[in-house]
Structures are given as C-alpha cells and as structure tokens.
C-alpha cells in the first residue's frame, strides 16, 4: 500500500515539477524568443523594454533587462482581458475546445525521459513500454481541440481552419509514425528510456560515427576499442536514419501547425483560423497548447535522434546518486535535455521566419505523394541493412 502511495506521490511531484517549473515557463519564453528572433531576422529589435518596473515604486528609471519580463506582462494582459463569448456559438463545445487543445500536448510529456535520475529516481513520469506510441496517440488528439473550436465557433473562417487542420493532421500522422519505424527496428524497443540507453551505448542516432573508448573523466583513450567499434555498416545505416530525421522533423512541423504548414491559422487567408472567435484566457490556452505541442515535438526529436539527456564524454551515472555530485550530474542531464530542446525550438522559429506558407494542395501532395513513400522505402532499406550489422 505504501509502495503505491509513494509511487503516486513521486509521479505527482515529477508531473507538477515538469509542467509548472519547466514547460509552462518554457512556453512563455518560447513566445518571447519567437518575438525577439523574428524581429532580429527582420532587422528589428523586438520587445526589449519590459523589465523590473521600478518607476511604479517611485524610482526614476526602469531596468529593461532585455525585455525578459515581457511574457509576464503578456500573461497578465491575457488574464485580465474580457472573456467574451459570442452569442451564436455552441457554448458547451466552445468552452471545451481550448482545454482539448491544451491537455494532449501536456499529456504527451508523460513518457519523455527528460533527465537521467535525481536521488536514484529516473526522470521520466511514466516509464512505459508503449513509449512513443503514447506520444503519437495523444498528440493526435490535439486535433479535437482545433476541430471543436472551428465547428463550435459557428463562423466561416474558424470552420475552414478546423477542416484544414484535421485533414492536415491525418495526412502527416502517417509519415510521422512511419518515419521513425527504422529507429524501433534498430533499437528493438518502443520504450523511450531504452532508446536513450541504446543511444548512449551506440551513439546518437543522428550522428554517423560514434567513437567509443574516449572519456574525459578519467581522461583516457582506448585505441583498441575505437578500432573495434568502427563499422562501415553503421555509416551506411546513417543515411536512412538521416532521411527519417528529415521526414520526421518536417512532419512534426506539420503536426504542430507551424509555418510553413500553419494552414489552420493562416492569418492572411483565414483571419485567425480556428481561434478567431476566442479571446482572453481561452485564446491563451490555444496559444499555450500550440507552443507546448512544439516543445513536446522538439522533445521527441531530441529523445529519438539527439540522445535525449546524454552529454558526450560525461558519465551517465555515478556509483552513489545520493551524493552532492550525483545530484549535480542529474541536474546537468536535465539541463542538457532542455538546452537541446531549446536549440530545436530556435530552429522551429528560424524556419518559420524563413519560409512562406505552403499552398493547400502542395501541402497534401507533399504528405501523400512524397513523405509516406520516402518513409516506407526507408523502412525497407533499414530492414535490408540490419541483418548484416555486427551485434
């Protein structure tokens, strides 16, 4: 009995810590980063004013602090705005939709290993064997929020946005799932923690070669191990893995409704898309869900291709994880994971402000004619290479 109680408590602490301490602040600062990066790409500066408002307390000058308090001001504004419900909407679904858009992306976080361990406790909320299937299953539920919002708003533009979104998500779900099948064939598991373990031993799946035998703590180079670990098939295997990385990443863009695939929103065509009729905190929930989905997407990419929390040349675990250095190492691993995620998020933003939006038929063509085929062929290529691999 106490065993289950402790499990529930620990999981609860991990969930709350992950969502409220890491993900939600990360979402708001992703919005800030989006604004700053987009501004700088367009030769502007972006929000650089909101800092510590000393003038409110009678001082002469504010401390701008690079505008880092902007997300707090934004959140306050969204909370204090009038929550307007138009008269013509279907109230029940109209209220349900923002939650439906927000919850799945948070749920998908449950299986992602965001750190090695702290005080001997593995840093993953649910270490389950279905792993990545859970991520796909739950994150595709996010479409309900958008479809419900589009339909219940009882207005033309949101409706079009909702329809676009559902067809887009269905098309890209296929290539998303198919493109990562090679990984499961190589790692022989769906459990994300196991995939990370495989990557620690055999090298990140995105990198073509992995030099075993070099370590910094203690500093040593083992030449024999280097020569032994060299395998030409591993380098050949890198080609299909790289293809699957590209297909997966692009499908992830489509899945999270990011530009160049943000047709459900498409400001220029659909006003605001599915959230045209929403205001205040309900709109903020859509926004939150969208950015949280982006973070989850990046986290999945990091877990599958970039070795999750693993830092090269750093030991993965100490003999006694309860000591000071054991805890520090655990924290470093968590930090490493989120630094990788942040870099990918930067990539997301960077792409958004580089590429124009796809036309709808081009989007569908890309999904159905190219990505699914490429992903399928990729699976067969890996299947042919794998039997020849050295164990």
């Amino acid at each position, binding site marked *: 009995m106490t065993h289950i109680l402790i499990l529930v408590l620990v999981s609860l602490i991990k969930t709350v810590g992950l969502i409220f301490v890491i993900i939600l602040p990360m979402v708001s600062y992703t919005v800030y980063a989006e604004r700053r990066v987009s501004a*700088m790409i367009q*030769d502007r500066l972006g929000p650089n004013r909101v800092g510590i408002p000393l003038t409110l307390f009678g001082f002469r000058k504010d401390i701008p602090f690079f505008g880092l308090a902007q997300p707090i001001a934004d959140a306050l504004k969204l909370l204090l705005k009038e929550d307007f419900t138009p008269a013509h909407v279907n109230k029940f679904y109209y209220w349900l939709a923002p939650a439906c858009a927000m919850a799945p992306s948070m749920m998908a976080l449950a299986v992602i290993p965001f750190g090695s361990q702290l005080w001997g406790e593995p840093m993953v909320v649910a270490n389950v064997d279905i792993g990545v299937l859970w991520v796909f299953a739950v994150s595709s539920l996010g479409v309900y929020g958008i479809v419900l919002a589009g339909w219940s708003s009882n207005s033309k533009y949101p409706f079009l946005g909702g329809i676009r979104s559902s067809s887009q998500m269905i098309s890209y779900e296929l290539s998303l799932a198919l493109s990562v099948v090679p990984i499961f064939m190589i790692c022989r598991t769906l459990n994300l923690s196991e995939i990370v373990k495989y990557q620690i031993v055999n090298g990140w799946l995105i990198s073509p070669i992995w030099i075993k035998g070099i370590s910094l703590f203690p500093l040593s180079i083992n030449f024999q191990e280097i020569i032994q670990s060299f395998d030409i098939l591993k380098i050949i295997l890198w080609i299909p893995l790289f293809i699957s990385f590209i297909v997966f990443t692009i499908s992830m863009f489509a899945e999270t409704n990011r530009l160049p695939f943000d047709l459900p929103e498409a400001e220029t065509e659909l006003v605001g898309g599915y959230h045209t009729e929403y205001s205040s905190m309900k709109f903020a929930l859509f926004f939150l869900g969208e950015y949280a989905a982006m973070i989850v997407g990046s986290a999945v990419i990091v877990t599958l291709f970039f070795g999750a929390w693993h830092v090269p040349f750093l030991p993965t675990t100490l003999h006694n994880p309860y000591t000071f250095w054991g805890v520090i190492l655990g924290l470093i691993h968590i930090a490493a994971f989120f630094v990788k995620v942040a870099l990918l998020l930067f990539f997301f933003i960077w*792409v958004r402000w580089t590429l124009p939006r796809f036309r709808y038929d081009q989007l569908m063509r890309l999904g159905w004619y190219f990505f699914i085929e490429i992903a399928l062929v990729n699976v067969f290529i890996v299947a042919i290479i794998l039997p020849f691999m050295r164990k």
Partner: protein
Amino acid sequence: MAYTVARPKLTFAEKAYLPAILTGLGITIRHLVNILSGKKKVTMQYPEEKWDKNLPAHYRGAPTLVTDEHGRERCVACQLCEFICPPRAITIHPGEIPEENRWRKVEKFPKEFEIDMIRCIYCGLCEEVCPEQAIFLLKDYAITGLTRQEMVHDKKKLYELGGVMTGLVNKWNDKK
C-alpha cells in the same frame, strides 16, 4: 492571342526544395547575426534617441504664433487661418485695440486664439494664408497631454512656443 509561357526546366536540386530552403535559412540567420552583433542598425530607440537633428527643412510640426521685435503680436485677427483650416482646429475671437494704444492703427487683435491640437492635421495652410506672417509651423511633433482641454493650445501657449520673429519677414524665409 494566347501566349504560352515557357516553363523553366528545374534541376533535381531545385525540385528537391531542400537546397533552396538551406539558402533561405542562411539569409535569415545572417540578418539575425548582423542585428545581434550590432553590425547593422536599422531601428532607433525612440525616447532615448531622436531624429530631430535630421528633420527636413520642410518638416511641418506644431503651429505657433509669433510677436515682432516691439513685442507686438503680429496677428491682426483677420481670421483667414480660421476660415482656411480644413479640420477647423483654429478658433479666434477678435477684439479692438483701444484708442490710447501705440498700435491703434492695426485696429484688431485676437482676444482669444485657440488651436485644437487634436484636430490639427499639420497641413500648413494657416502659415501659407496668413497675410501678416504671424503664424508659423515649427518642428515640434511630440504634442501630448492628459486631457482634451490640455491639448487645446491657447494664446499664451502659442506665443510661448513661437517666440519672437524679427525683421521684415518674407513669408517664404526660413524660420526653422
């Protein structure tokens, strides 16, 4: 006549999108790095940095009234500016100059002269129409106030902004 546009023959690299996307990413990151490193500067931090020095000679800012070298207000309350003002921002209440006054021969002066700066469109027609060269547009553009009443410039405020204009003024001479 129908005209057939020749379709360009694309190479494989062009059809595959990705090289073009990478080029585009290179362009955007170059802009980002240039702004971030301060190599390029396009925007101006407004309240701290201002463009005032570079305002062109023909810049039209706030309209003001001027006095001449004798301290006489130039305006003779002919009301031409009031009539020409497109948004009707100017209100003048003319008064008669008393008998014993040195400038009796001028006959009229504005008892009240108000310009509603919320209405003013800075067109400069008042300056152009004034036969006495009493009203000028300066380069001030940051006209602010907390109430509507505050945004109505009365005679005192207009003279305070305008100051003195000496000499035989040619209408087309620079004041600014």
